[in-house]
């Protein structure tokens, strides 16, 4: 029986079928649905960790003790988890450990498009790259087996088009979940320098055995074809090659660390011209060139963004491999440019008023990762920066310490889930090193951006159990913050007053702007109405960037189908033209 599954659902199925006992991760597009799917299977323990480093450590511990483990995260999450990952290559595992790295070429929902294949080489772990959902499922099993056979973590590297594309998958019955015996072994698992040096040598030996395995691995295979053109490829790029270059010889690599060097040399010897088709960095190309082979890759194809079959056809036509391509019958000439439709904060979003206020107060605002990053876009423009999870607080402190002109004018804005992920240490530092910054925690009681996952302050776990909910205000006080206030972000007058007083106050302050995500509660008050007589057409309400508000014939108009009655516009209207209901402010 075949089922149509996304890559993420297939990986979850693979973990279930392969006897995974524990799975951990932190939500991040495009990886999130793996654990959401896996948690619905009977008998697999799944958890959201506060961040990827903790998730990886949970996985390393469970694997050391003999359980099969899956750890999931988006590509930038591996930066956070890199510390345990690198040394876990030294210790090795006991039960198999597969780390899913979900990369995002094209940055559909990410701040960068780093190519995590380099992590596998850097950390000296094995890597598998599926090219569809069936392979994604199969490679979880294979990865666990390789992990156990070679005593090494295995990285399963997917991309957005694997994670979020659906294709047919043959399901199988699950194997029994077993836990391998554990015995204390400090020379293997206690990485002090003396033992680390031993494991370093042992790791080199394991990698050389892995390299021999890679030569024979069933996931590395040649698709025979016309020998004039040979293409080495992996992951989703394989599908684009099959589509754009039918009939050529293909070396399809499913295991991309270590590479099957002899197989690549043999393939190169069979073909007249050797090409590499890969998204992002010239990861395969550089290694193949180091073998002394003549190969064409990035001089033909871009090293940024996603590939597709159309792009391949044009590139290979330009190189003379394909005949000139007919123009795609462009019906677009002479058409007006479609105005962009950027993502925006939802109607009723509790973050909206915060950014409106910050912009009007002309503060320097370091931002963070989440839905609220949209508050930095026009017309709200209430944010100066967004770098990585937790960066807002450290950056604000850096500004505060270094630039006298901005001292006492700098605010960090961070979501509740992001604060628990990696904001706590930044705040601790601000207290310890005597900052004058103000930290705004936008507490919408969920991890909203990735689809409302629970976290340590929501009172519920991934498995649906009740859990102690951390008290954010008490946590901040315990870190040494003297000034902690909780406000309702829909009360704009109070919010503005509190921000002004905390920014002016010496020492670090925390303002918790608390109001659940509007999509979480689905609570809607009566929609706002506009008194056209009173409306002056000043467009102040438009500065809220609310999708429900528009100008009709010079007067403000509220779409009653979209409006949830948050009443922010009622509060910013200076003419008293917006009339709210009972709910909201």
């Amino acid at each position: 029986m075949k089922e149509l599954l996304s890559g993420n659902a297939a990986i979850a199925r693979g973990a279930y079928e392969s006897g995974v006992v524990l799975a951990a991760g932190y939500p991040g597009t495009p990886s999130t649905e793996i654990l959401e799917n896996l948690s619905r299977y009977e008998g697999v323990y799944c958890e959201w960790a506060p961040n990827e480093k903790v998730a990886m450590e949970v996985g390393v511990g469970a694997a050391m003790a003999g359980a099969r483990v899956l750890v999931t995260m988006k590509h930038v999450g591996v930066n956070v988890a890199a510390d345990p990952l690198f040394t876990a290559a030294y210790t090795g595992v006991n039960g198999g450990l597969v780390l899913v790295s979900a990369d995002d070429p094209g940055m559909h929902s990410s701040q960068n498009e780093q190519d995590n294949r380099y992590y596998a080489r850097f950390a000296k772990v094995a890597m598998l790259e599926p090219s569809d959902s069936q392979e994604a499922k199969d490679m979880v099993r294979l990865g666990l087996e390789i992990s156990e056979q070679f005593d090494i973590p295995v990285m399963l590297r997917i991309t957005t088009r694997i994670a979020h594309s659906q294709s047919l998958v043959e399901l199988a019955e699950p194997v029994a979940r077993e836990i391998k015996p554990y015995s204390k072994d400090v020379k293997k698992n206690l990485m002090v320098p003396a033992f680390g040096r031993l494991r370093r040598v042992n790791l080199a030996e394991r990698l050389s055995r892995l390299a021999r395995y890679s030569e024979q691995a069933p996931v590395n295979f040649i698709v025979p074809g016309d020998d004039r053109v040979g293409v080495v490829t992996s992951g989703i790029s394989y599908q684009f090659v099959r589509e754009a270059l039918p009939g050529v010889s293909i070396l399809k690599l499913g295991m991309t660390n270590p590479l099957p060097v002899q197989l690549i040399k043999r393939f190169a010897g069979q073909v007249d011209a050797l090409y590499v088709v890969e998204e992002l960095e010239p990861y395969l190309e550089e290694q193949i060139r180091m073998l002394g082979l003549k190969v064409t890759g990035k001089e033909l194809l871009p090293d940024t963004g996603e590939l597709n079959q159309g792009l391949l056809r044009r590139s290979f036509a330009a190189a003379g491999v394909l005949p000139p391509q007919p123009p795609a019958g462009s019906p677009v000439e002479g058409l007006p440019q479609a105005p962009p439709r950027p993502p925006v904060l939802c109607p009723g979003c509790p973050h909206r008023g915060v950014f409106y206020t910050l912009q009007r107060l002309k503060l320097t605002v370091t931002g963070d990762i989440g839905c609220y990053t949209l508050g930095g876009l026009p017309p709200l423009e209430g944010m100066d920066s967004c770098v990585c999870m937790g960066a807002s607080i450290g950056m604000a402190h850096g500004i505060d310490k270094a630039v006298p002109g901005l001292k006492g004018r700098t605010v960090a804005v961070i979501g509740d889930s992001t604060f628990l992920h990696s904001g706590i240490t930044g705040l601790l530092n601000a207290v310890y090193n005597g900052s004058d910054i103000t930290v705004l925690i936008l507490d919408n009681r969920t991890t909203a951006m990735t689809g409302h996952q629970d976290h340590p302050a929501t009172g519920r776990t991934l498995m649906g159990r009740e859990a102690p909910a951390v008290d954010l205000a008490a946590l901040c006080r315990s870190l040494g913050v003297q000034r902690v206030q909780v406000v309702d972000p829909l009360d704009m007058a109070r919010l503005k007053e509190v921000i002004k007083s905390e920014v002016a106050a010496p020492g670090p302050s925390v303002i918790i702007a608390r109001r659940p995500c509007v999509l979480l509660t689905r609570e809607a008050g009566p929609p706002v109405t506009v008194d056209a007589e009173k409306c002056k057409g000043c467009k102040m309400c438009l500065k809220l960037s609310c999708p429900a508000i528009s100008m009709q014939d010079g007067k403000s108009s509220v779409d009653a189908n979209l409006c949830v009655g948050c009443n922010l516009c009622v509060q910013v209207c200076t003419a008293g033209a917006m009339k709210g209901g009972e709910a909201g402010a």
Partner: protein
Amino acid sequence: MLKPVNVLLVGVGGQGTILASKVLAAAARAAGYDVKVSEIHGMAQRGGSVVTQVRLGEKVYSPLIAEGEADVILAFEQLEALRWLAYHKPGGTIIINNQRLYPVPVLAGAARYPDNIITLIKERVADVQVLDALQMAVECGSAKAANVVLLGALARKLPVEKAVWRQALENTVPPRFLEINNAAFTAGYGARC
């Protein structure tokens, strides 16, 4: 059928493109085709432009549709039809829901919503079908079934039997909404525009 049939579903977050693509994929699967579906989650969904790519055929490799390759573009909104027009394959079909949803730059007065999109597209594409799916759905009992009206219009253009579509619809939508959705599908399937 040798070459895959490519269907591009474009719209705005919240319009129900995902459900429509689910029914489409299930119907294609039940008709015995290989199927691939690709969609984007996360940041793009917050009221942004959304696109789902569905390919069906004897054997489908790429989950993506390249420019100039879409046999059918199913546009849930006028501006999105314009935005994705470059994906239209010469000789293919475009089905457009008459609805307009103004993006924030337009609402804020920073950009203009082109006012004659359908005329412009009809000048360039022979097979354009325009529906007032929202109104048709309201007549069937719920504005929320506009996506299924559009699905009905799409069904006529694809090599899948009507009965197979009906079964796929029944298997996908919650039972209490089946009656409305069946009516919406029929309305879309029968629409002449």
